[in-house]
């Protein structure tokens, strides 16, 4: 490559080419490094809200992403107490504490309770926001300090006070009433709603903000990674510390309901928090249901409904859910995986 006469350092054509290619090469590397640096501006915040852990990953070219993340967290904490089953500041508690009375509520509350009842209707009660009494009976409320297996009689009695049709709405005056002793619990939908809010908040700060928010394993995409790539999301193995599938999302949401999230074991039997509103017992025959949807409210509510339904008839979930904009992956008891054709679209990059 080099002339044998090493004293030949004149400005020859060859030397110029070597020099300029090295110069260009180093410039290119520098530029790439710089680009990687500027892209790598995702601010990450982990905390607790909605009764679970929260992870906010957000980026903005316009304002400090930390400001966005903190605003998001604050709103999630607001929703936590506002729709809590037990908190004194909760609107839900206010409605439950005044049975057979019209309770005037704000628009946000009114819409969310109405949406919850609409999902109940849509799933024939597999998702039911009025299972408050049952959850109370099992101890799946508050700090889970009173967990126990209730007697059959107790469950029969509680079942009499369950049913979304006992929630009445007065559109004109934005009032809600619970009758027949039912108690509203928004645990199966408030998390999804809060996640959808996080995107709105991020976009209100910067319409080009990107990132995602995760709350207890449910995820809402704010915008594609670095503005153009999908976020890679693993689907948890319901029994091992492992991932059984990958999905790629540039928008939308994903939620999973699993029997491993909140449970206790008595005499070798696992009792988890996803109760079947028709039997009063934890839904059986399935380990987890993952739903991909356009929004997190749908994903959240329908992953709970899908869990309740899949143990009895997983085909119904696989065939019917895509028509509701929910694309399911089901892990049945024993580990068999079933998924809709539409779910497979998210398995590709």
């Amino acid at each position, binding site marked *: 490559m*080099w002339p044998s006469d*090493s004293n030949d*350092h*004149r*400005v020859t054509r060859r*030397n110029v080419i*070597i*020099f300029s290619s*090295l110069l260009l090469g*180093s410039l290119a*590397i520098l530029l790439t*490094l710089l680009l990687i640096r500027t892209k790598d501006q995702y601010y990450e915040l*982990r905390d*607790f809200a909605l*009764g*679970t*852990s929260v*992870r906010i*990953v957000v980026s903005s070219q316009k304002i400090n992403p930390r400001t966005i993340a903190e605003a998001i967290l604050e709103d999630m904490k607001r929703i936590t107490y506002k729709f809590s089953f037990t908190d004194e500041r909760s609107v839900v508690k206010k409605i439950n504490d005044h049975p057979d009375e019209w309770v005037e509520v704000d628009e946000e509350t009114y819409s969310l309770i109405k949406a919850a009842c609409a999902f109940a209707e849509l799933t024939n009660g597999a998702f039911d926001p009025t299972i408050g009494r049952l959850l109370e009976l099992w101890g799946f409320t508050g*700090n*889970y*300090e009173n*967990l126990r297996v209730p007697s059959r009689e107790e469950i029969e009695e509680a079942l009499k006070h369950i049913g979304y049709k006992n929630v009445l709405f007065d559109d004109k005056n934005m009032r809600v009433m619970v009758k027949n002793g039912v108690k509203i619990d928004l645990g199966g939908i408030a998390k999804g709603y809060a996640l959808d809010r996080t995107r709105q908040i991020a976009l209100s700060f910067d319409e080009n903000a990107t990132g*995602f928010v*995760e709350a*207890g*394993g*449910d*995820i809402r995409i704010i915008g594609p*990674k670095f503005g153009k790539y999908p*976020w*890679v*999301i*693993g*689907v*948890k193995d319901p029994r091992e*510390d492992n*991932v059984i599938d*990958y*999905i790629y999302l540039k928008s939308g949401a*994903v*939620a*999973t309901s*699993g029997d*491993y*999230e*909140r*449970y*206790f074991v008595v005499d070798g039997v696992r009792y988890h928090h996803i109760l079947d509103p028709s039997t009063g017992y934890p839904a059986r025959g399935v380990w*987890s249901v*993952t739903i991909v949807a356009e929004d997190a409210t749908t994903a959240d509510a329908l992953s709970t409904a899908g869990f309740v339904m899949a143990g009895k008839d997983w085909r119904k979930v696989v065939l019917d859910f895509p028509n509701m904009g929910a694309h399911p992956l089901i892990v049945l008891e024993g580990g068999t995986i079933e998924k809709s054709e539409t779910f497979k679209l998210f398995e590709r990059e």
Partner: protein
Amino acid sequence: MKKVRSFFRKKDVVLIILIFVVLIFSILVSEKKGSKVVVQGKDFRKILSKPGTYDITENGRFLMKVEFHGNRVRVVESTCPLKLCVKTGWVGPGGTIICVPNEVIIFFEEKTDYDTVTW
């Protein structure tokens, strides 16, 4: 003979290549920090880099005992009622242990081939 001004020597190329190698190497090294586990609570953030068993306390109150094995971590005991963090068992990079009552999150700093997990 008139000496021609040196423009570009073999040594220069060697030097440039050397600088590149060092640069790229240092970038690679900084990317792979090795397994470190973050234990984050309400008022503290503890980073575990050496294997061992650690007592996690918050303002002097014992919360849990964490065992770290380099590429795996688990909660051995905890003061929470349901003990879901203990039942979670061993967790590797990409996995997370969450103790809701104690408000403690345990996760690896190391990057995985996915961004997050739905569970």
